[in-house]
Every structure is written in structure tokens, then in C-alpha cells.
């Protein structure tokens, strides 16, 4: 019998769901938005439809990412560090270092024999995260998706003197006013993020093979800038956003197989696809104080 498992990765910016039964049956990526539970529900429904199964067919669901506690239909929560490591190792078994650059954070994960041995994380400051790219993209009037390709046309890379996203945005505006080319500014921005992320990841000592994941790994200009810092080429999964969700699904598969082997039943009574109330106002107010 096929064991269907799902991994749900609620990131700060994007939510990803992977349904797996030995191979990936469905993979859906959608924006997270302010209401995690509603997003989890929506993206899960889409993934179930793609896999042509229902929630009851899923033997096990693992939630991960920053919003992992807001998945009422998950059987278990696992940190994104563990899930990323697992997901990346399944694609690149020789990985030693993962550099994950997400929408609002960045991480360096050190792996030995498929296990996490150390990690560093920045979620305190927008510099060195996808948010930095978004802010600059808006200031330059380009789409985030086209930043990478555009920056490759740069002939000279200006140096951004500000670390802070807010001040860098102002710096970029004044360069535009001075007539600096957009592609050159973008190259400077990629250089700045690469410097920051490299400095952070170096704290766990970057070793080959290096795999770059997260939404920012789709930016070829940033990846090339990182390669220049590291000194050799890095690996990028074909879908760098999905590694956390894939890892979560694989961890779910392991737990489910063990349970089936031992004959222990997996209770799904607590699972709720749709949360009773999507937006619990009293609860969210309570969080503020």
C-alpha cells in the first residue's frame, strides 16, 4: 500500500506544500500572507487536488517553518533547520553547507553525514534577506524575478556603503539620480547581500559542497556574487524554495513507516483541515502584550 505523506513549510513570505509517496506527487507554493492558518489550508487544498487525494489519504503530515505551529492538520512540527538539511541531503547527498536565503531571514547550516552539526541564523535584520532585495527592487522599479538576469549585464559594480536596508534604499535612490545604471546598482546590491550572508555563514565554516536554497537562490546574480565570495561554485536545487517542505515530507514518511512497522496506529482525530476560526482576534491581541 502506498504511504502518502505531506510536508508543509510556512515561511515568512511563502508557504510550500509537498505531497510524497516515494516520489513527489504535488508541490505547491503560495504567498504566506498575514493569516498562516488560512494560507496553510488553501495551499494544502491545492496540493491535495494536484495529487488527486483527500486529507484522509495522508498517513502523516509534518509542518515546518516559521509558521509551523499554525497548521491545525499537522501531526508533528519539526524545525526548518532539520527539514532543510533533510530535504537538501536527499537531492545532494554530498552537501556539507547549506546557505538558505529566505524572504525574511537567512541561515547557514553545517551538515556532516546527513546530520545537522551546527547552524547560524539572521532573522533580526532585513539586510542579508529577501526583504532587502524586495525593498531595492521597488526603489528601482524592477521586478524581483528579473533582478538576477539584469545584474549580469553590469560593467562596473558600485560599493554600497550602508548595511541597513533603509539607508541602502536611500543610497540607491541617490545613485539613480546621479545616472548610475540600474544593472550596476543591482550588481552592487547583490554584492552587498552576498558579503553579509557569506560573513554569517562563514561562522559555521563554509565547506564544499555548498547548496544555496530559499527564494533568493533563484536570483542568479546573487548566487554568482556568493560564488565569488566563497571562491568556488555552489549547487542550487531546481526548485530552491521546496527543500524545507520536501525534508518535512521525508521526515513524515520515516515516522509513518516506523509506526506501520510497529503496528502503532496514527491518530488523525485531532486533525482539522480548516481551522474553526481562521482569525482568532482575541488570541492575536493577546500576543501583542
Amino acid at each position: 500500500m502506498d504511504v502518502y505523506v505531506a510536508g508543509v513549510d510556512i515561511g515568512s513570505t511563502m508557504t510550500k506544500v509537498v505531497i510524497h509517496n516515494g516520489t513527489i506527487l504535488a508541490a505547491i507554493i503560495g504567498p504566506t500572507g498575514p493569516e498562516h492558518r488560512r494560507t496553510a489550508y488553501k495551499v494544502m487544498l491545492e496540493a491535495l487536488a494536484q495529487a488527486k487525494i483527500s486529507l484522509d489519504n495522508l498517513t502523516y503530515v509534518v509542518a515546518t517553518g516559521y509558521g509551523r505551529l499554525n497548521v491545525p492538520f499537522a501531526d508533528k512540527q519539526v524545525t526548518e533547520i532539520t527539514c532543510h538539511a533533510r530535504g537538501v541531503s536527499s537531492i545532494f547527498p554530498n552537501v556539507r553547507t547549506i546557505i538558505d536565503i529566505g524572504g525574511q531571514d537567512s541561515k547557514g547550516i553545517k551538515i556532516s553525514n546527513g546530520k545537522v552539526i551546527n547552524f547560524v541564523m539572521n532573522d533580526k535584520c532585513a539586510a542579508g534577506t529577501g526583504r532587502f532585495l524586495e525593498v531595492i527592487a521597488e526603489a528601482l522599479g524592477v521586478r524581483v524575478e528579473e533582478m538576477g538576469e539584469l545584474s549580469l549585464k553590469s560593467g562596473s559594480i558600485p560599493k554600497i556603503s550602508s548595511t541597513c536596508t533603509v539607508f541602502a534604499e536611500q543610497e540607491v535612490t541617490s545613485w539613480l539620480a546621479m545616472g548610475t545604471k540600474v544593472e550596476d546598482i543591482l550588481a552592487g546590491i547583490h554584492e552587498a547581500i552576498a558579503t553579509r550572508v557569506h560573513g554569517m555563514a562563514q561562522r559555521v565554516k563554509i565547506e564544499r559542497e555548498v547548496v544555496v536554497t530559499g527564494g533568493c537562490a533563484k536570483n542568479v546574480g546573487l548566487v554568482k556574487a556568493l560564488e565569488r565570495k566563497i571562491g568556488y561554485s555552489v549547487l542550487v536545487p531546481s526548485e530552491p524554495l521546496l527543500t524545507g517542505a520536501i525534508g518535512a515530507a521525508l521526515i513524515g514518511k520515516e515516522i509513518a513507516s516506523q509506526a506501520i512497522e510497529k503496528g502503532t496506529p496514527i491518530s488523525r482525530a485531532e486533525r482539522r483541515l480548516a481551522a474553526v476560526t481562521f482569525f482568532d482576534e482575541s488570541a492575536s491581541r493577546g500576543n501583542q502584550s
Partner: protein
Amino acid sequence: MVKAKRNIKKKPWALGIDIGSAFSKAAIVSNDNGDIYYHIIASRGDYRAAAKKVAEEVLKRAGITLEDIACTVATGVGATSVAFSSIQVTDISCVGRGAQYLYPSAGTIIDIGDQASRLIRVDSEGSPTNFVVSEKCAAGSGRFLQLIARVLQVDLSEIGELSLKSGRPTAFSTNCAVFAESEAISRIAEGALKEDILAGIHKALAAKILAMVERAGLEKDLVIAGGGAKDIGLVKSIEEAIGVALLVPPEPQIVAALGAWLIASERSTTNQAESLLR
């Protein structure tokens, strides 16, 4: 005006210019009666043009021309763009001297500008003896307030009074101005009050100032300068955080320009008649 013209023959006039990232300020103190003439305009990214404009206006207000000025001191991030200045002096020195000119008892100055916050310890002459600058990160500067005011669609001049109405300041989970901006948007979507968010930002900024106080120490009297000092909510939050009352100048934004004037007036023995507004 005529009187002023006569007086310049006795004692030369001086001009202080402070070109900040957001605002440009100019100050002249009258040779007749000690009246302070000043002008403040937005820098708008063109420091050179801002310097010329703000100087022309303050000269007009003082009833003199640039030819009457014996020495001009420029300070601030755009000091090098002041084509007609005699010398450039650091903002630390100018803020210190300016605050001491207004309050001879000043021992420490907190300066909250657009891109940086500074804590400056001064001696009895207003000369800096120690200072700390927070300029790496917008979270410690007046820019943070500007960002949040924009998100909340509140005029910068209103945020102070509005924040005083807060009963429950919002606690932000982040120190980063960029992340706090999105957090403020989410909170508003959830129905949070603007005053609570502003009070929360004031508390966050006050905590940054407290950290600077802990590093450089504090000596009374304490003067607050810079655009941030115009925000009564921020002033009160800082007072609460550090437990010391603050002296707030009537126009806190011109403290550095005033210090620049003071330094210029001490050096105004050299003739600068050949300098022209270029």
C-alpha cells in the same frame, strides 16, 4: 536692518550651516542683541542646492548679505557640499557647542537625527569629551519614526501628541526598522490603534538611547537635540527609560547649526569678502 549693517563694521558676522540627510539648517546670531536667526529646509538629496537656499534665506532674515559674513562653518553629512564655507567642523563638535551655548549647564547631549543618533558628553566649554554614534541601522535613528509615520499616515509633527494617548504601547518582536514596518501594518490590519504603535516605536527608540547612555555614561544637565527632540512622545519615553529629565531647546533642529555659528564667530577674524554664493 540698517542698524545691523552699521554694527558689522565693529564685529564681523558669522554663519553656521548644518546640512543633514533630511534637513538643512542655517543659523546666525545677531551682533546687536543676541537674537537667533535661523532657517530649516528639506535637503531633498541635493546638498549643494539646499546649502545655497538655506543660507540665502537666513541672511535675508538677519538683514545682511554673504559679504557681511567673515566666517562660515559647515557641518553635517553634506558639509563638503557647502561651496561657500570657510571650514568644516564635525557634527559632534557643533552639537556639543550649540547645546552648551543654549544651556551652559549642559553635560550630555542626545542628538536624534534622520540617519544617526548620538550621545555626546561635553566639558564646561561644550567641547566633546566622549561620544557614541548609532548610524549603522535605521532602528536607532529618526528615520524609523518617519517610516512608521508614513505607514500610519500620520504627519510627523503629530506623532508625539498622538502617542501620548496610548494606553498600551505595542511590543514589537523586532529591532529592524524594515521588519517593524511590516509588523505595524499587520497590527493595524488586526485593529491596533495608531497611538499604541507610535508609543511602541518610541519605547523601542528609547531603549536604543538607553543602551548608548550605558556605554558612554551620563552627566547632567541632559539636553536633547535634533529633529527627534520635536517629538514629545519620544522625549517622554527617553526620560522614562533613563530616569533623567531632558532639556528641550525651543528649536532643537538648529543646535548643530548654532554650534557651527559659534565656532565660526570665534574664527571670524579672517576676511571672507571674496567668497561668493556659487
